[in-house]
């Protein structure tokens, strides 16, 4: 291994900034953090070797402020920039600016990023490279006959989508030609009225979809590796909640086959560094490429735990021009790992964001437990940034051991002051369809998981009612003792024992 660089500026915040700082410490590279006004007291500022002030809280004025970040990189003498995920991580202008200034961007080249960022172009390249994509039109359709032709080829039912919609708006399902023609006319008219143009395209409708992705790495010598899959089907409104590896529906043969396709996809855009090829898998077991995420993924720890590879250190080494230090055949899938994304959202109230001071928190630990988080007692969860406050990751010899450890670690994880998605995950970890691997991207709705969670909380409250009544009795007795009005009463007051207990225990 050659000489590495001596300093990295981390253009991010929160748990991922801390994750990158840890990698820097292990490689004896100086870590340089950035902070907005909102983040002066954040943990990444405390952990980094250096920290520079960036600007006001709003992302546009701080963590998305390309000019300011480049300026700090030059002032601080940073040799490289790690963008983390989110913010500028997939911004080709930023990557390009780094290239221009001679600062190493720890990620793909701006050219590769431009290709992976343009979904239509990327799909075209993949099709040429023999990577399977979701059957459908390659471009916008002006003609209903063309739509019918494609539908015949891909098979019904088929999805009719508007290029100007988004987030599910304007998606229509047609299960035969007659229906498709009707819907096309309606949708076309609607679209013309709203946007002045039709802009429709069709795509095969996939049932019982699983979202499965492959971790990739490719170095500057052109060596490409896939580092196995992650199962990411537990989602809410297309946001991943839980990820694990290996997937129960990916056997050794499929892993090699789809993994090789993923590597081919990376090659076809001359990809550099770590990335992720995302696929959808239908009920029949067909895999369809959807896109390459050209950055370190939130869920990368799952892969780290089953392979032993430190992906952030690997990213840094590749960015410094080193070759990937392993062959595809060197990799072993060791055990099973699960990640839960702990979000500051209230699962009992439609997942509204929950922000504010964390008076206290208790991080779980023990065999097979890893936490990546920026939380500490007294810290602040800001409404300006992402709701992810912690990632809890567990490892086990098999899925079941990892799952039980996750369930126990969730019980141990206490975050005071805000609502989080922990109760939801406590329910899922013990839900029979999850246990048996009966999952798909509509898992939450299909099995009424939110209702199940509500009912379980009620049951738990009832089960602990003896304890809560006891606490109430003890505390009100204590208050009586504090209140002089009660002191004259002949009733024995508990406060004396509470106090006695405190004295004994050195409080």
């Amino acid at each position, binding site marked *: 291994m050659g000489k590495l660089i001596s300093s990295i500026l981390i253009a991010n915040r929160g748990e991922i900034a801390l994750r990158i700082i840890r990698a820097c410490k292990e490689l004896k590279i100086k870590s340089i953090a950035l902070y907005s006004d909102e983040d002066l007291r954040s943990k990444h500022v405390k952990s980094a070797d250096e920290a520079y002030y960036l600007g006001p809280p709003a992302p546009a004025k701080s963590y998305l402020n390309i000019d300011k970040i480049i300026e700090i990189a030059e002032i601080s003498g940073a040799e490289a920039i790690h963008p983390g995920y989110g913010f500028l991580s997939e911004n080709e202008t930023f990557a390009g600016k780094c290239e221009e200034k001679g600062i190493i961007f720890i990620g793909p080249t701006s050219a590769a990023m431009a290709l992976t960022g343009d979904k239509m172009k990327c799909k075209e390249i993949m099709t040429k490279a023999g990577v399977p994509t979701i059957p459908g039109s390659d471009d916008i359709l002006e003609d209903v006959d063309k739509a019918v032709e494609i539908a015949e080829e891909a098979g019904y039912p088929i999805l009719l989508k508007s290029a100007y919609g988004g987030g599910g708006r304007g998606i229509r399902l047609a299960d035969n030609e007659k229906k498709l023609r009707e819907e096309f006319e309606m949708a076309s008219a609607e679209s013309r009225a709203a946007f002045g143009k039709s802009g429709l395209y069709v795509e095969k409708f996939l049932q019982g979809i699983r979202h499965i992705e492959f971790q990739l790495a490719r170095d500057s010598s052109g060596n490409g590796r896939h580092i196995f899959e992650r199962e990411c089907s537990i989602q809410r409104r297309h946001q991943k909640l839980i990820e694990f590896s290996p997937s129960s529906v990916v056997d050794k043969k499929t892993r090699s086959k789809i993994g090789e396709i993923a590597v081919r996809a990376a090659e076809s855009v001359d990809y550099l560094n770590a990335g992720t090829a995302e696929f959808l898998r239908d009920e029949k077991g067909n895999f369809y490429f959807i896109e390459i995420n050209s950055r370190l993924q939130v869920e990368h720890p799952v892969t780290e735990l089953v392979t032993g590879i430190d992906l952030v250190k690997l990213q840094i080494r590749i960015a410094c021009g080193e070759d990937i230090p392993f062959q595809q055949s060197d990799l072993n899938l060791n055990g099973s790992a699960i990640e839960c994304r702990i979000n*500051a*959202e209230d699962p009992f*109230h439609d*997942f*509204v*964001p*929950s*922000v504010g001071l964390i008076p206290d928190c208790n991080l779980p630990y023990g065999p097979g437990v890893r936490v990546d988080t920026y939380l500490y007692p007294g810290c602040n969860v800001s*409404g*300006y*940034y*992402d*709701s992810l406050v912690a990632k809890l990751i567990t490892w086990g010899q098999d899925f079941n051991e990892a799952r039980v450890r996750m369930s126990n670690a969730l*019980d141990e994880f*206490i975050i*005071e002051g805000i609502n989080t998605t*922990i*109760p939801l995950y406590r329910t899922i970890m013990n839900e029979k369809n999850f246990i048996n691997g009966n999952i798909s991207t509509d898992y939450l709705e299909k099995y009424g998981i939110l209702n199940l969670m509500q009912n379980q*909380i*009620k049951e*738990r*409250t*009832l089960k*602990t*009612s*003896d*304890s*809560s*009544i*006891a*606490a*109430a*009795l*003890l*505390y*009100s*007795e*204590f*208050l009586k003792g504090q209140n002089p009005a009660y002191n004259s009463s002949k009733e*024995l007051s*508990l406060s*004396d*024992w*509470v106090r*006695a*207990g*405190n004295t004994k*225990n050195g*409080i």
Partner: protein
Amino acid sequence: MEFKINNLDNILSGSISESSVDGKIIATINGKEHFIRIIGLKNSILEFILDNSYRTAKIIEFGSSYIKMIMNGEQIVLKKHSKLTEILEKSLAISGSSSGENKLYSQIPGRVVSIMLKSGDQLKKGDSVIVLESMKMQVAVKGHKDGCIRDIKVKVGDTVSRNDVVALIE
């Protein structure tokens, strides 16, 4: 004494039946005797052993007829129960839903990204009045009752805190 816990239907009961000076207590809860040993009370955290099992409760709030605590990571509200309070609560609930509060509060802090209704517009309970952005998510503040918008208190770009008044509904 009788209690109600959170939204459970059951009416539960508890009282202290015996106590000795060394911190050992016998309580009767839901008709059964329980043995309690107090460990301590510090920073509103009450620790005790109930029938050979450790228990802890963090007391958040208390009033003459209720106590709010966190136990096993869950919030528990325990109310002293009596026929009278039940009747009172019911009548309050009825009056609350009929006339109610004019102020519409934001349930979360965030930045106003769009305003859906203007002064004078009619709305039904549940209609979106304004949309806030927090943690990269868009969250609607919805009307808490049927009525007519009298005033919108915010404009696009404003930052609101939790429980700020964002509109008046008549």
